[in-house]
């Protein structure tokens, strides 16, 4: 597959077309109907959650939030394949994979409401917190890859980055280190066409992002990121490469950020209605749904039934997060060092004294 879709050939790997029809039987992944349905529902859940969060934000109930809207197939495919013991190294637009690892929506809500507790990911093993500084997390993935290889563990590291992130030096260093060390990392670039307002063509003059694999001597492939089957198959094959000790893989998943960059962004400033409509045709949910309906695995009726349930579930977790309670003062100081240095301890005590004094002033 990596030969057939060598990025130098400039062909994007696709399995279904915009109407959900299989156009590439050879590479159609084997997914059982139940499993496929589960994946679709996970994508749907992510989308429902996503749209709902945007409306919470409008109500002022959450701060910034970066929607996954339109990119659900990528995180869902990775989520379907990632194992409990595999590592997840997120950027910040991979809700599907995080949920699959056991992160809860409530935790994500807490995080975006402004609690570090939301990054603890109590039930998600081997899942790093969201990384805000673009591309820097990729080096962690390479380092984890080294540890996994050093310890002879049978684990794969899933690492995410955006198209914008490929311009950072850390992207270069990470894929390069991983290539030299031949470590089992799948680097997934979500090329959603923009880094905030900046289009991908202003990030780089290269023919594609997948082609950058050549610079590191690693396998690369450009995949239709709105085609769940293609994403699934590409990751499945990448996992094999990794488990065979053949080193890292670079996947460019071509997609589109249908929403705003974050809830504080206004995309009408930098892109056209026509462009948005064009991408609507390629919407990953729509395409998978067409496939499912055509194959009698799903119906609009079922969808109409399940959406309210999902909304309710999202709301339930959101309200739980909203009622999380105050942020304990101790938490400001507690996690800096394995043991708190005396001086920091003093600072905390001084703060206590101030708070006591303040309590007498402010009633």
């Amino acid at each position, binding site marked *: 597959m990596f030969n057939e879709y060598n990025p130098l050939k400039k062909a994007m790997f696709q399995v279904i077309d915009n109407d959900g029809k299989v156009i590439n039987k050879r590479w159609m992944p084997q997914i059982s109907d139940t499993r496929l349905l589960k994946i679709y529902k996970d994508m749907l859940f992510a989308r429902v959650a996503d749209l709902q969060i945007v409306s919470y934000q409008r109500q002022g109930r959450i*701060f*910034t939030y970066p929607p996954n809207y339109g990119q659900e197939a990528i995180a869902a495919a990775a989520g379907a394949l990632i194992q409990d013991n595999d590592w997840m190294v997120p950027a910040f637009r991979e809700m599907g994979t995080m949920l699959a690892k056991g992160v809860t929506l409530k935790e994500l809500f807490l*995080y975006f*409401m*402004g*609690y*570090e507790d939301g990054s603890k990911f109590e039930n998600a093993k081997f899942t790093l917190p969201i990384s*805000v*500084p*673009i591309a*820097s997390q990729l080096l962690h993935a390479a380092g984890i890859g080294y540890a996994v290889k050093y310890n002879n563990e049978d684990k794969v590291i899933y690492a995410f980055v955006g198209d*914008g*992130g490929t*311009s*950072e*030096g*850390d992207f270069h260093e990470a894929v390069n280190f991983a290539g030299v060390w031949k470590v089992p990392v799948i680097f997934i670039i979500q090329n959603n066409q923009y*880094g*905030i*307002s*900046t289009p991908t063509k*202003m*990030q*780089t003059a290269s023919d594609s992002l997948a082609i950058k694999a050549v610079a590191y001597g690693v396998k690369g492939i450009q995949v239709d990121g709105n085609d769940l089957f293609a994403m699934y198959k590409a990751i499945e094959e990448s996992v094999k490469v990794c488990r065979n000790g053949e080193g890292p893989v670079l996947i460019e998943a071509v997609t589109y950020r249908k929403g705003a960059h974050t809830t*504080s*962004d206004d995309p009408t*400033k*930098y892109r056209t209605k026509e462009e948005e409509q064009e991408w609507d045709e390629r919407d990953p949910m729509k395409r998978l749904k067409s496939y499912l309906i055509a194959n009698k695995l799903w119906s609009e009726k079922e969808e109409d039934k399940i959406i309210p349930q999902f909304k309710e579930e999202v709301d339930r977790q959101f309200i739980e997060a909203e009622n999380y309670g*105050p*942020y304990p*003062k101790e*938490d*400001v*100081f507690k996690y*800096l060092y394995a043991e708190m240095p005396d*001086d*920091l301890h003093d*600072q*905390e005590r001084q*703060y206590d004294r*101030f708070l006591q*004094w*303040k309590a007498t*002033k*402010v009633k």
Partner: protein
Amino acid sequence: MVNAINDALDIKLAEDKSVIVYGEDVGVEGGVFRVTEGLQQKYGASRVFDSPLAESGIVGTAVGMAVAGLRPVVEMQFCGFIYPAFNQIISHASRMRNRSRGKFETPMVIRMPYGGGINALEHHSESMETIFGHIPGLKVVVPSTPHDAKGMLIAAIESNDTILFMEPKRIYRAIKQEVDEGKFTIPLGKANILTQGTDVTVVAYGAMVREVQKAMVMAKEAGISVELIDLRSIYPIDRETISKSVKKTGRIITVTEGPRTYGVGSEISQIAIEEAFLNLEAPPSRVSGFDVIVPLPKGEHHFIQDPYKIFYEIERIVKY
């Protein structure tokens, strides 16, 4: 303040063809805080534009442009994202003149919103001015009002030095002030005495000035006369203004947002003891953040300086 900064850029872009403005999303979008709004339309995409997402790239290319005679004004999108550019700042932007014994200069400005209090994500609320103030060859300045922002930015763009221009984003839109039209400059490196007072000198800058002013209301009620100095320049420090003031009041407190240890406060205290040891009636003191990472929004109130904290310290020092 956003408008004042935009105005300063506008004036310099109009006046000097060597001025170039770029950074992440500063072109079409006009910056995530809309500071550069409208400038690309006005001056074209070769003078105001979006760069690839790479901070070292942005600062490093600006060094090259400056060496070649342009006056780049680049934006770091948030205070937490300047670090990939750290090597270019400390190894080149601040060194080129010294290294080449004056043959090359790097007249360039690095603009950066900084500081907390806006309910932002991690890395969007830092105040790490100390580490930049400690870099020889760099100048670091912070305006506290729209007027200062405009005058200081114009001065920064006209300077032949490399200037880190830190913008207190918390007050980007908070302070309403009539700003003089047209071009004017405010000399870099000079502090500004905002209020004369006799009991204690309080040194602050950026968004902290306003917080001190709130504390001063309480101080006044308590009968304490505060002399408020807006430091304006983190490096170089206006030693003379501080010296005079502390000699007069005998007491000094510095209010900053960043971590305490190795913060700006201890340097101001050191200056006070060097300049006015025998006049001191209380130990030079500081109100600052703790030595911790800025908490996410729900915990940020524990970290940022509220006026009560400042007043608490004013009272303590005056009663000392």
